[in-house]
Every structure is written in C-alpha cells, then in structure tokens.
C-alpha cells in the first residue's frame, strides 16, 4: 500500500512538474540574444509558402504570405491557389487587426488559434525568462501572450518552438531545410486538437 501511494505521489509530482524539469533541462546563465527567430525578420523579403492544413480529418491548401512591415509589425495573408484571399491579418506589437476574412472562416475559435500560432511564428525577440541546456541544444524559455514557449537552438540556429500549458507540450513549431535565416519547411503541430499546418517555401 505504501509503495502504491509513493508511486501515485511520484506520478502526481511528475505530472505537476514544469516542462524543463520533465525534460531534464539544465539551467544555465541567461544571455539575452538579439533575435531568437530570424525566419520572418527580413523586411525586404516577400515570404511565400505553399500551405497545407489538416484539420479535423479534412485537408485543404493555399498560399501563406508574410511581409515584415516594420519592427514587430507583420502582415499575414492566406489565399487560395487561384489567388482569392481567405484571411488577411496585421500583427503590430501587441495589436492584432483583421483586415479581411471570408465570412465562412469568421469564427472566433478559429481566429484565436490562428492568431496565437502566427504570433508565435512571427515573434523575433521575445523576452527570455530562463535559459537551459538540453543535449546539444540551448533552450530559451520565454513568454508570448500568456503562454510559456521554449525556443530550441542548435548551434545558434532555431530548430523548434514548443508552446506549453500546465507543464505539457501543447503546440510544436518545427523548422527544417534551413538556409540563411530562411526555413524552407515549417510545421505547426497541435497536440490537443487535430490540427497540423505545413508550410513549404516556394
């Protein structure tokens, strides 16, 4: 009985443990980086991705377009392949503006998911709260909105961002095929809802 209770307590404590503790992160001294995420940071680049969205058993595609218009100021547009705009958002500092959204997509729940995901994707220099070492990666803990995010850098190159909630991984932002501050492939994988967004650079 005592062993059972101890196991239960251990399980409970592990369940409540923070994301860094669960993953065996080693705390190290924080050195504030100038930019953690360089992938949408060049204001002279038109970022155009072919997007594939798998949501609730359905798949659809389009073009995801991002332009940096100033410091902490981005415009994001999603169009069909034929070019019709489905939504058009502006992110400026902490403000979020819907310039246009197709009536069929104008749902608060959907807009909130997209808003949070794109805010994370576009944030270049979030305020770093903690720094860790994990295997060969340096992991920066930062806050975007009200959620904790962990930026994994391998040799100073951002590989992934993990958004957590209650010490658990909620959303993963995975960057691959990286060339000179440009990620040719980006995946946004939600762990709590069946939603995956794949962006392929064109």
């Amino acid at each position: 009985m005592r062993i059972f209770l101890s196991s239960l307590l251990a399980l409970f404590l592990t369940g409540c443990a923070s994301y860094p503790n669960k993953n065996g992160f080693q705390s190290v001294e924080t050195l504030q980086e100038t930019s953690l995420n360089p992938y949408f940071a060049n204001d002279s680049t038109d970022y155009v991705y072919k997007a594939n969205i798998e949501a609730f058993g359905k798949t659809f595609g389009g073009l995801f377009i991002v332009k940096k218009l100033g410091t902490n100021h981005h415009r994001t547009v999603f169009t069909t392949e034929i070019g019709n705009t489905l939504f058009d958002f502006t992110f400026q500092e902490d403000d979020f503006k819907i310039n246009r959204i197709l009536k069929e997509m104008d749902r608060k729940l959907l807009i909130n998911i997209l808003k949070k995901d794109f805010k994370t994707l576009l944030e270049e220099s979030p305020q770093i709260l903690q720094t860790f070492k994990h295997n060969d990666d340096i992991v920066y803990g930062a806050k975007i909105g009200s959620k904790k995010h962990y930026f994994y850098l391998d040799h100073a190159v951002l590989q992934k961002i993990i958004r957590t909630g209650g010490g658990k991984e909620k959303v993963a932002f995975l960057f691959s095929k990286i060339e000179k501050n440009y990620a040719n492939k980006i995946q946004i994988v939600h762990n709590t809802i069946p939603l995956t967004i794949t962006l392929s650079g064109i």
Partner: protein
Amino acid sequence: MPMTNYNSNLGNPITYWHNRLIPLPVSVFPLLIKEQYNLVFRNYLLIFIVFVFSAKLTGQTKLTTEEANSLRTTVKQQAEATTTITSDFTQYKHLDFLSSDIESKGNLAYKAPDLVRWAYVEPFSYAIIFKNNTLYINDNGNKSNMDVQGNKIFTQLNQLITASIRGDLFEDDQFDIAYFKKDGNYLVYFIPKDAQFVEFIKAFHMTFSPAGEVMEVKMIEPSDDYTLIVFSGRKVNQALSDAHFSQ
C-alpha cells in the same frame, strides 16, 4: 444583356465626366457671379484636361452599342465553334504590400460543355478538375474531392472559370457589363451583382483579341488587390479524351 452606365470607379473617365460636366455651364453658369464662374470654369477645364490626358495614357475608350454588339457576336460565335481548348497561363497575384507579384505558371484544358482542368506546375504542383458537380483536387499528389452542388460560390467559380476560358459570359444576368477598346484589343468589365460573390471578387476584367479569344483575366478583390491570368499557346478543337480530366 443591357450595357450598364459607367461606374465612376471602374470605367472610362472621359465619358463619365463628359456626361456630368458638359451640361454644367449651360444650366448653372447664368446663376453664378463672375468670380464663381471663373473658379468653376477653371476647375471644369482642369478636370477635363486631366481626364483627356489620363485617357490618352491608358488608351482606353468605351465601345459604342454597335461595337459592343459586334464583339458579343464574335465571342459567342467563337465559343460555339469551340469544342476543346488547351492553353498555358501565367498568374500574377498582386498584393499591394508585397515588393513583387507572386508568379505561378500552369496549363488548362477545357472540353465542351463543362469539363475543366486547371493545373499549376510551377512553383508548386496543384490541379483542380470540375466534373459532375464535384471539385477534384490533386495537391502535389494528395488527392481529395468536394461536392460543390448547392455551393453557390463554387458553382459560380466553376461558371466563371469555364466562361473565362470560353469568353461567353455576356448572356449572364449576374453581372453588370461595360465594354472598352484598349491597345487594339477589347477590354470588358464584369461587375457581379450578387452581394455574396462581391465579397469574394469585386470585379473582373477580361481582355479579348480582335478575333474574340480571351487573352487575359483580371480578378479584382474588394481590397483592390488582384489576380491577373495571362493565357498563351492557346490551341482549340484538338482531340481531348475524358481521361485528360481524371484526377
């Protein structure tokens, strides 16, 4: 389809200002004192000069009713004599805030009365086929389909694509239409009447060759951003099997 009056945002400025301003001196000027007359006359002259020059720059003039009727007949005859079309296209997506337009290339196939295959090959692979009220999609090998029967937007989109290829939208009472001549070709403005459709496409402009073939289609969004599709290498009435329209 009756020709509509020119909309001040979209049509020929000369006709618009001519119709509005020519009667002005006759009807209003006797009631004005000399200074006001000079001011109004100067403004009137200035506006007239600006629009004469802008019209010369764009080289766009409104067709007479006879010319518009003749164009409609030419295009209709051309469309009725067409059983198949294949063509390449280059698409330019213009968003005002981008440094340059997003360019993509592809090809299309049409078989009367309503089989359409519209495929992008560069810089991504994506094809849609409209067949039996179903939209078949091949997104770089990922195949899916969508029943679009009863879906107003998709039904209109299908009609729009078919008509864009054939060019015979003139009989459609869903649009207000205005006809112009530009650079030796014909430019026709189609303004959708349906409010739901306008939310998607505010207007589209089609350019026809003198022979009545569609050369360009420009779809303008409510924000004034647009998609321009330029056709090239058009071939008509070549044998196309139904297999050509399989996913």
